């Protein structure tokens, strides 16, 4: 079994890991690094529960190999501290069981960063890559719109 030693940049820290060629980033985050905020929901790219940010774009960590990630800037939910998106999710009750929440927040956080003027259609395109089975999505919509609105007021 071939293993590799990698240096990953995760949440502004350098982390050394030893991984198999076939290890997904999700597996390495959860098992090697104890970053269990990204969740396995399908391991097939269908649910978005494993979403993290790679170079500030949302990525499904179940669809990336850890060895692809050297030199990239990885942010997981554990790297988010009291961000407007987290606050909005709390305020608007944008989760119930919470299992999809890390993925949704990472996706939405990246959305407001990369597309600060996102309209409804763009929000749909971005947020459609995640599944929430508990809420009716309306609370999530309100949370994300709230942050978008507040941001545009600041500008």
């Amino acid at each position: 079994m071939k293993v590799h030693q990698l240096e990953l940049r995760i949440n502004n820290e350098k982390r050394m890991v030893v991984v198999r060629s076939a290890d997904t980033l999700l597996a390495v985050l959860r098992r090697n690094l104890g970053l269990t905020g990204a969740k396995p929901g399908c391991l097939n790219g269908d649910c978005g529960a494993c979403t993290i940010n790679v170079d500030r774009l949302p990525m499904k960590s179940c669809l990336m190999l850890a060895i692809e990630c050297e030199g990239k800037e990885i942010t997981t939910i554990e790297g988010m501290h009291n961000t407007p998106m987290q606050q909005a999710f709390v305020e608007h009750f944008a989760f119930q069981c919470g299992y999809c929440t890390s993925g949704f927040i990472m996706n939405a956080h990246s959305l407001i960063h990369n597309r600060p003027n996102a309209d409804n259609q763009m929000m749909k395109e971005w947020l459609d890559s995640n599944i929430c089975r508990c809420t009716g999505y309306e609370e999530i919509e309100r949370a994300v719109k709230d942050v978008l609105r507040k941001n545009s007021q600041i500008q």
Partner: protein
Amino acid sequence: MRTVGSSVVRKEAWQKVTGTAKYTDDYAFAGLLHAKMVVSTMAHAIITSIDTTEAEKIPGVRAVLLGGSYPLVGEAIRDRPPIAVGKVRYHGEPVALVVADSPVLAKKAANSIQVLYEPLPVVNSATQAFEAGATLVHEKLGEYKRDNEIHPPIPGTNIASHVKIRKGDMEKGWQECDSVVEASVSLSISDHAAMETRCSIAEIGPDGKIKITTSSQAPFMVKRLISQYFGEDMGKIVVETPLVGGAFGGKAAVQLEILVYLASKAVGGRPVKLRNEREEDILTSPCHIGLDATVKLGSDRHGKIKAANIRFLWDGGAYSDKAVDLTRAGAADCTGPYAIDNVWCDSYCMYTNHPYASPFRGFSHSELSFAIERTMDLLAEKVGMDPLTFRKINAIMPGNTTPTRVLLNNSNVGNLPKCIERVHELIQWDEGEMIALDERFVRAKGISCSWKTSTIDPDAPSGVILTFNPDGTINLMSGVIEIGTGTKTVLAQLLAERLNMDVNNIYVKMDVDTQTTPEHWKTVASRGTFMAGKAVLQAAEDVIRQLKAIASCVLRAPIEDLDVADSRVFFRDDPGNGVHFKEIAYGYQYPNGNSIGGQIIGHGHYILRGLTHMNPETGEGRPGPEWTVTAHGIEVLFDRRDCTYKVLKAITVVDIGKVLNDKAARGQVMGAMSLGLSFAGRETFVFDSLGRVRNPQLRTYRPLHYSEAPEYMVEFVETPQIDAPYGARGVGEHGLLGIPAALANALSTAAGVSLQKLPLVPEMIWKAKEHVRP
């Protein structure tokens, strides 16, 4: 009221938005072994051989388990081998279990196991199972142990149980009818698809102590069943449940816990984890029940329903587990929320070669509602009455009886006419049921009503313990599982309200373990707030009594003169004069050092009052405590050219009794509606002719996504249930119940043909329109 009614932020909110909330699979430690199932590729077949030689050669494989030496399991009927023996009865059934050092090795070993099958004829639907001479799924049905003596299985058939409702005089009822309609509806098995797949960890200590960590709605049931099935001492079994990533009934069944217990046993008690991959979660673990129903309804000239004859054939799948209870619950409320004096219902739990069923949010009621509400629309049409008015004049009310002859009163049933009136306005019913926009597109509306009681075990318990911290804050321990419903936050609100204190000074233990948390039977059936809430209020009385007793010594005053609020005990007539909880909650110390009292620990418990078993011949009995009623409305935009549609609006008005936490309650109702739209509109297992499921992935079994959500309208009516905490009724499931029916009604109007099959995919609608036989 101070706390009740306000949208208190969930106690675990910040854990959930920071990724620190822990679910079962998030627990890992050195030495943990991993199990992997080998599952059946056939729906019904004899296992001719299993070759494990290659798997056993792989270094790091610690055990390979095959069926044969384990007792049969199952809740109502012990009909299920934990690992298949001799033959398989559904696609996805476990046939072997491998334990290895890592998930990768376990999977590799599982893949190397060769299983050969000899196919048997497949029972591919409930209707087929019911036919005379049908292939038998269980040849030895009469020999199984069971705890269901009231509605036993019928050996020599595929009937796992037969529940009868016989109310009134059918002959007289039909004679009074001027219009009669009969409809057959069906819906196929589907899945809960909770985002967290099921996961369990087991470990057995040298002293025989069994520790199981599991994502479950029923850890206390896991403890009981492991004890019953395997003869283990109950006290030695400790089951822990951290946060659960959605459940919807699917985690009320006990399955992986059994497998992982056996796996740990096979490796000398070492800790073993078994986590479902999505495909296994869909195929192997219990799913959402299917139904083939026939409903005959008749009404008199004035549109008053006089008689109902209902036959339910539930597709319980290969093993009866919880399907027997689902069959009973469906019978108990079979008519939907309508006053009907003459009712005949046969509710059969059928064995088929499909994945077996566990509860699904609504516990048979969304399914039966689909059958009844489609027929209601057909009957309204025949009588020539507006469907909304027709429902209103037949709505069940205090003074009527249920199918099981429970007399309803102002407390045990909500106000359905009021719910209907609100839907009438919200959906703008008077504008017309269907409005053609152009050649192609129409807007169409459908409505439905539903109800539900919770047919849980009559002796189901719930308990609460309160302990104080030295600073006067309180810890609340309840066996309710936080599956996403926010019930534990609501419990804290109830306590804060009763003690008239700040809810932030109450800490809630989120995780449950069966050794130190008082039992809450199962976190199902929308009963958490009612039962645990009653226990909380009783525990509150207990601590108030203790606080006042010690304060009366300190303040040198009779107990009757004291009151409690804002974490203080004080004189009722002089509120400024008193003691803070922190001075007395851990005993009180006099200036000279003498001390009295000790840590205040309060408790409360609740058991449902006056429930009875159903009579085996007539169904008479009190199956549940109260009936929550709802009315629903749906508006669709329908394309007549290709039968595609978009749900524009979804409305639910529910008589909730009392809103305890507004945003949480709305979230529950909306979430349930979303689940209902998803299941009604698209979700089904696609079975091939051999009974195999062709779509066990979230890509092919696709729940509703963000962009597909309609506009939601949720409103509450508040008719208090007198014996419930602050009058609140169960509401966790009710947003879902009538949604499939309302969608089917709207689309039937739009398409101009009665749609009697779920899911309502365009192809099915097109076939119905064109009269193509499926």
